[in-house]
Structure formats: C-alpha cells, structure tokens
C-alpha cells in the first residue's frame, strides 16, 4: 500500500493541521469553552463583516448581521456535526441573515456608492478603493465613482438570491458547489442563478461597456 501520509505536500500537511486545530477548537467550544468560541470568532469575523458590509452597504446592518450570526453559531454549535467545513456552516448562517435583510429592505438607497457608518456619517465606498495605476487622476476617480454607483444600483435590481450568488462567486471568489451548500441548494441551481444574474447585469449595464 502507498504511504499516503508521506506523499502529502507541505502545503497539504499545513492545511490538514489547520483543519485539525480548528476541529479541536470547535469541540472545545461545543463542550462549553468560551475561549475556544472566541478564537473561532476571531478566525472568521473579518470575512463575515466583509461579506455583510459589501452586501448591505451599511455598517450598522453589517454589525447587526455579525452579532446575530455569531450568537446563532454559539447557540447552535452543538448541532454542528462536521459534515461540512465550519467555514461553510458559518457562511450559511451569514448568507441567510443577509438574504433576510435584503428581502426586508424595500427601499433602495438613493446614493448607492455611499455607506452609512457607525456615527451615521456617509462614507464613500469607492473613494476607499485606491487606484494604483500611474495614470490615476481626479477625473478618472470621479469616473470610477460614477461607475461604481451604477454597478451597485444594477446589483440592487437583482433578486436577493441572484445578488447573493453573484456576490459569493464574483466578489468573494467561492466555488459554486460551496455556494450551493451554503444556500441549501444544488450546484446546478447555483449555476443557473449565476447565469440569470449575469444576464440581468449585462442588460442593466449595457451602455457602460
């Protein structure tokens, strides 16, 4: 028989080690260790906030989703059976909360590139995205801002599910199979949803290209 262990690359070994450490943390958290749960929170909090912030465009809502997601995770961690990765599990909680949030929100933001921060001030999301190209200049920055607003407005016109699939695929770089798992659906359905989202976005943004 092959010595499978001996053929693992350093990277694979490292990945397995990380997963084993995470599994230990999860078990400790399931047994009631608050410190272990805190460690899991620290591991995923940036990803959770990044996703919630990009999807909602609002710091308050992102914070609420963050809190609700980790409280749910804490409450139902005992039900986690290691059938999927913890990453998929926590993302499933977050995406469901974001979907609920998007469905609840009937009104569209008027100035879509603007995010409301903690103190209620408006933050220009696009201004925080630096343009490192040497020919970057104020006129181009303005153009980028306007473009970003149009894209965000086009994304808002998708159904919550289409927006979510596009977000997870395009902006978060996840595999469609994982997205299907997170959204409790099949990879095939996720593919079709991505296709529909792409089609609608093309129609919305036709004159920009």
């Amino acid at each position, binding site marked *: 028989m092959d010595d499978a262990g001996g053929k693992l690359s350093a990277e694979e070994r490292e990945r397995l080690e990380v997963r084993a450490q995470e599994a230990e943390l999860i078990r*400790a958290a*399931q*047994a*009631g*260790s*608050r410190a272990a*749960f*805190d460690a899991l*929170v*620290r591991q995923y*909090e*940036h990803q959770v*906030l*990044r996703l919630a*912030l*990009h999807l909602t465009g609002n*710091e308050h809502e*992102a*914070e609420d989703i*963050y*809190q609700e997601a*980790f*409280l749910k995770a*804490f*409450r*139902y*961690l*005992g*039900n986690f*059976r290691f059938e999927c990765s913890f990453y998929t599990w926590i993302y499933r909680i977050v995406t469901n909360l974001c979907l609920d949030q998007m469905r609840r929100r009937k009104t569209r933001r008027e100035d879509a590139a603007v995010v409301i921060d*903690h103190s209620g001030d408006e933050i220009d*999301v*696009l201004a*925080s*995205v630096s343009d490192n190209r040497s020919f970057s200049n104020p006129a181009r920055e303005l153009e*980028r801002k306007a*473009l*970003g607003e149009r*894209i*965000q407005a086009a*994304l808002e016109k998708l159904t919550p599910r289409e927006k979510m699939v596009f977000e997870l*695929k*395009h*902006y*978060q770089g996840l*595999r*469609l199979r994982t997205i299907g798992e997170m959204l409790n659906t099949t990879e095939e359905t996720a*593919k079709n949803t*991505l*296709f529909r989202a*792409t089609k609608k*976005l*093309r129609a919305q*943004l036709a004159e*920009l*290209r």
Partner: protein
Amino acid sequence: MNCEVAHERIVLAVWGELADEQVHELERHLAICPECGREREQVRALKTLTSVYAVAEPDANLVARARLKLDEALDALPAKIWLERMFARVGGGFHGLQAAPVAAALLLVLGVGGGGLGGYELAVHRALQTAPVRSVALANSAATPETNSGAKTVLPASTPEMDKVANISEVVKVPNSRMVEVRYNQMVPQQVRGSLDDPAMQRLLSLASQRAVSAGVRDNSVGLLAAECRAGRGCREPGVRNALMMALRYGPDEEVREKALQGLEPLVAEDVQVRNAILSTLMNDSDPRIRTISINVLEPVEGDTSVREVLYSISTSDENQQIRDVSRQMLNRVPEIQ
C-alpha cells in the same frame, strides 16, 4: 454544441467553473462561431466592469466595535442557553445512536463489560490504597475545617482541570500568609487552596477575572493578580497579563480598571501590548481619573513615538481640561529626557 448551451458555458468558463473537457468543447465551438466569440468578450467585460465595485476590508474600529458588542451579548446570555446546548448535544448523541443501532448495541456491550471489569479493578485498587487516601483527606480537613464540612471537596492546587471549571465563586486570601483560596464550580462546587506563587492558582485567578459568579469575586481576583504584579511576582505568566489587560479594557467599574492598571504598571516598559492597552485606555476610558492614572503609568515609555502621538492628540483636542494639561506637561518633559 448549440449557441444556447455555449452561452451558459461561457458564463461558467469566465468565472472558472467549467470542467476542462467542456472548456475544450467550448473552444472548438468558439473557433467557428463569431457570435459566441462576441458573447464571451461581453461577459469578460462585465466581469472586469463589476470588479470596479470592489470589496473593502472592514476597518479596525468596526471590527473592534462588533467584537465588543458580541462579547457583551454573549456575557448576557442566560444560563438557559447553556442548558439548551447541553440538551442539544445529548439529543444529538441519541440521534447518532438511533442512526447506528449496531454501534449502539456494541457500545452497550462494551460499556457493561468495561464497567464491570473497571469496577472490579477499582475495588481492588481502593482496598490497597485506603490508608494513604484517608491521610490526605485528613490533612486537607485539618487545613480547612470550615470549608470541608459540607459536600464540597478541598483539593490540592494542581488538581483542577481548567476546562472543566464552570465559574469562579469565591476568592479569599488567607490573612498574613501567601495562601489564597479559590472556590470554583464544576458539576459539584469545589475548592482549592494554594500559594499565590503556584501557576495553577494564578491560572484560576486569571480565570476568575472572566468567569467569576459575581463582580466582587472578579474584582478580588484582579486585585490579587495586580498586587502580585506590583510586587514583581507572577506577572510573567501570559494568562495573568492578559487577564489584567482584559480587566483594564472591559472592567465595568473604575475600581477594577484602576487595579488592573496598577498591576500592569511594572510591565509597561517591557511589553508593547501592555503599553498599547494602556494607550487605548487613555484614549477611550469613560472615567477621567483612570485616564489621568494612565498618563502617569505611561511615564517609563513617554519617549515612544506612539505615546507621544497620543499625548499630542489629546493635549490639543481632548474635551477634558485636566487631561489636556496633564498630557501637555508630560509632553513638555519628553525633550529633556531625549
């Protein structure tokens, strides 16, 4: 391949989701179909275009704020949640057994067999060890007659398994000695007695700063840890330092934050994390007295760039006149030192 199928596969290909064999098939179609070639260019253009609305990293303040709120919410969770979680685990265990009846039967047989054998071994072992166990118990009861009268068990300090400690119910320092008693809860409340120099006791005190049953117990623990640090003992344990930093940052009343601050004082010159925690207190604490003490505690590192920056910032813009004055005085001293 017809054009309709090609269009769907183009989307998947552009986002890297098309299997290799289908990519080759698509390429063959694109080589002979200019319309689908244009379609691919348009989807690629859309991908490039939508990337302009980039994902921004959440800023550090947002992360810190969200974490703090979550901590508070978790602290406020009623004990019921823990019970629910325990029942869920037990329920899950039963579910697993139902799903695997053969394994359940095996477990039962092994359990009965192992239990019988283990019980026999234990009985034999106990019969051999009776005298020494009694003498240890007597020694303990002699040491703490007042606490050993009920169902509680007094154990040596090395015994507690930290993961099984539910919370800390009492911390008592024995007068005129180096001994401290920490009472903590598992399924049955227990008590340990040990020297403040014992790392196991220090770990329990650190735990008490987070898991105490009452504010008084927590304050007592922080006070003891801080006093040890000020006396130059026990502070090198990372758990002790972290407990004091947590108390400084999240302590709900100013007394406990003040004790933590005093405990951290001897470490400020050598530990950047401690220095940063105190800087954070100086900037954010709600009590001006604690902020003033923070300025004084920072004296050994007043020449550090980050300390000077914070001092400069608050000396010019803080809303509290006294804080502005004290920080300005310290800033004025800095050039003389350098």
